[in-house]
């Protein structure tokens, strides 16, 4: 079994900020827009280094999305920054018409996604954003798992021509993927090889899956762990190859069951190779205030929930 070392807890949004600053240096067409959350999105460094390419729009997300669409006309590569809730639900129609349908090269960068936003509570804890974004034709949806991967993803999406939704989070979490990794959009990463079950995880749940894997190994369950950082387009090949070997799957995400990554996997399996699947996701509810770890526990989206789901799915695969 491979061992992954947490090199120190750090927030994924800081990975975004660091990636954006590097892009500012390497690509003069990159511009950034922010709706009054410059500090929260870690865009201060970009703002200070490239003030002429930073656009403070105030608390006006709809205008920000439209402006970003317009800036692509003239060759700019706009990165918008606000919370995931205000990056999607609040501006769905602006994204749909001015960005997605118009095929504009806008990078929608969304922090504080999911329950781990914590104490601010359900008004800000969007658990529907992956669904909203993946339904838009032509939209690429990315949910990296740690600081290093978020930084790499931020740089990679600048090279991709087309609208992208990049989802990341607020809390300090384990940083364990390689520094200076190459991020390949649409290519899932196999983190752990296994033979009994495939765990497909995205975002903050990837580290939880690796933690679950250790406990499962003690119980003689060999879990394959796939880091699915790109939810759309979906790397069906990697998923199906793994399922071929393990014969069952658990999907894990910090999102509602409905519209989440798990549903995308279920569709792929139904079309190609139906096998038992269990879902680790929020059970069609809103969140609430609390510490991130407590919330993940209460809403059953952590390592412990993954272990339970694995036990269920393995039983379904091998009925007595």
């Amino acid at each position, binding site marked *: 079994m491979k061992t992954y070392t947490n090199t120190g807890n750090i927030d994924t949004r800081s990975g975004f900020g660091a990636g954006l600053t590097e892009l500012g240096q390497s690509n003069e067409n990159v511009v950034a827009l922010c709706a009054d959350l410059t500090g929260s999105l870690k865009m201060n460094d970009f703002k200070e280094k490239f003030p002429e390419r930073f656009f403070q729009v*105030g608390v006006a997300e709809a*205008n920000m999305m439209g402006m970003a669409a317009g800036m692509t*006309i*003239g060759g700019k590569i706009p990165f918008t920054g606000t919370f995931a809730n205000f990056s999607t639900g609040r501006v769905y129609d602006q994204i749909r018409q001015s960005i997605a349908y118009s095929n504009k090269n806008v990078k929608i960068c969304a922090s504080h996604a999911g329950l781990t936003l914590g104490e601010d509570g359900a008004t800000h804890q969007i658990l529907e954003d992956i669904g909203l974004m993946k339904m838009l034709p032509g939209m690429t949806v990315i949910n990296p798992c740690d600081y290093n991967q978020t930084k790499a993803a931020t740089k990679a999406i600048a090279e991709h021509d087309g609208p992208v939704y990049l989802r990341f989070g607020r809390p300090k979490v384990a940083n364990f993927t390689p520094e200076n990794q190459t991020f390949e959009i649409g290519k899932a990463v196999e983190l752990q090889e296994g033979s009994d079950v495939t765990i497909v995880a995205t975002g903050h749940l990837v580290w939880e899956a690796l933690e679950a894997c250790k406990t499962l190994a003690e119980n003689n369950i060999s879990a394959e762990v796939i880091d699915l950082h790109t939810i759309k387009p979906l790397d069906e090949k990697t998923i199906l190859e793994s399922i071929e070997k393990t014969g069952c799957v658990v999907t894990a995400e910090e999102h509602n069951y409905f519209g989440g990554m798990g549903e995308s996997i279920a569709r792929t399996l139904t079309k190609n190779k139906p096998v038992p699947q269990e879902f680790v996701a929020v059970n069609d509810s809103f969140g609430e205030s609390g510490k991130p770890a407590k919330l993940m526990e209460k809403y059953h989206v952590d390592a412990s929930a993954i272990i339970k789901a694995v036990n269920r799915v393995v039983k379904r695969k091998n009925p007595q």
Partner: protein
Amino acid sequence: MADLQKLQTLITQVRRDIVRQTHGVNSGHPGGSLGCTEFFVALYQEIMDYSTDFTMDGKNEDLFFLSNGHISPVFYSVLARSGFFEVEELSTFRKIDSRLQGHPTTHEGLPGIRVASGSLGQGLSVALGAAQAKTLNGDDKLVYTLHGDGELQEGQNWEAIMYAGSRGIDNIIATVDWNKKQIDGATDDVMPLGDLKPKFQAFGWEVISVKQGNDLEHVIEALGVAKKHSGNGKPICILLETEMGNGVDFMMGTHAWHGKAPNDEQLQTAFEQNPETELGDY
């Protein structure tokens, strides 16, 4: 100065195109289209500097964004008759497999369109982005927009109006088609807009009022003044008072023709009021 007689001929032809397009598919929006005919002809024939060899980026060209996308019939007619695509293509308006969708879109690759519009209130934001990109690119050409007056009820406009005024975006000229009508009736009854001039001024815009928005010379003059005033640290708004349905008598003085097509008989009446021109029907 323009050959006004030539432009008047084009205006008549565009009006014929508008009623034919909507009649042909028994749908579409003739009222606002007819009311904005002089504006479109002035903009594309007299004011804007552009190439019909269309590129999305439009660098070193003036750009135009139609925010109230439902008046696509006038937009399509003027684009075609300005050389962006063949006039014959107007016959495909709103039909299956057409580039001339009910509301304008980039999706089918129609030259002259740079963003989809139809869901109201989004055009000014997009235009502001394009204007800021021009500034970053050292491109001193201008960005023009058109908005319905009812459309100003959408809150996003006011986000954009606030942004443009506070940032002194002075390479944008936004025109409001102030015909005082919307789908459900008079704007004063549906959701009064109040006095738009002081509203825009309070947000830091220069406002040019045009009482006769269906008089070609007045429209050209106002757009010319706006162009001259650009670059002075303020965005410019033209409040263009027009008449919905202008040029077709039974469509005037009512909001009824916002989104209704003429029948065979009504088409003939409209044609009689806008007789055949040397430009020819599509």
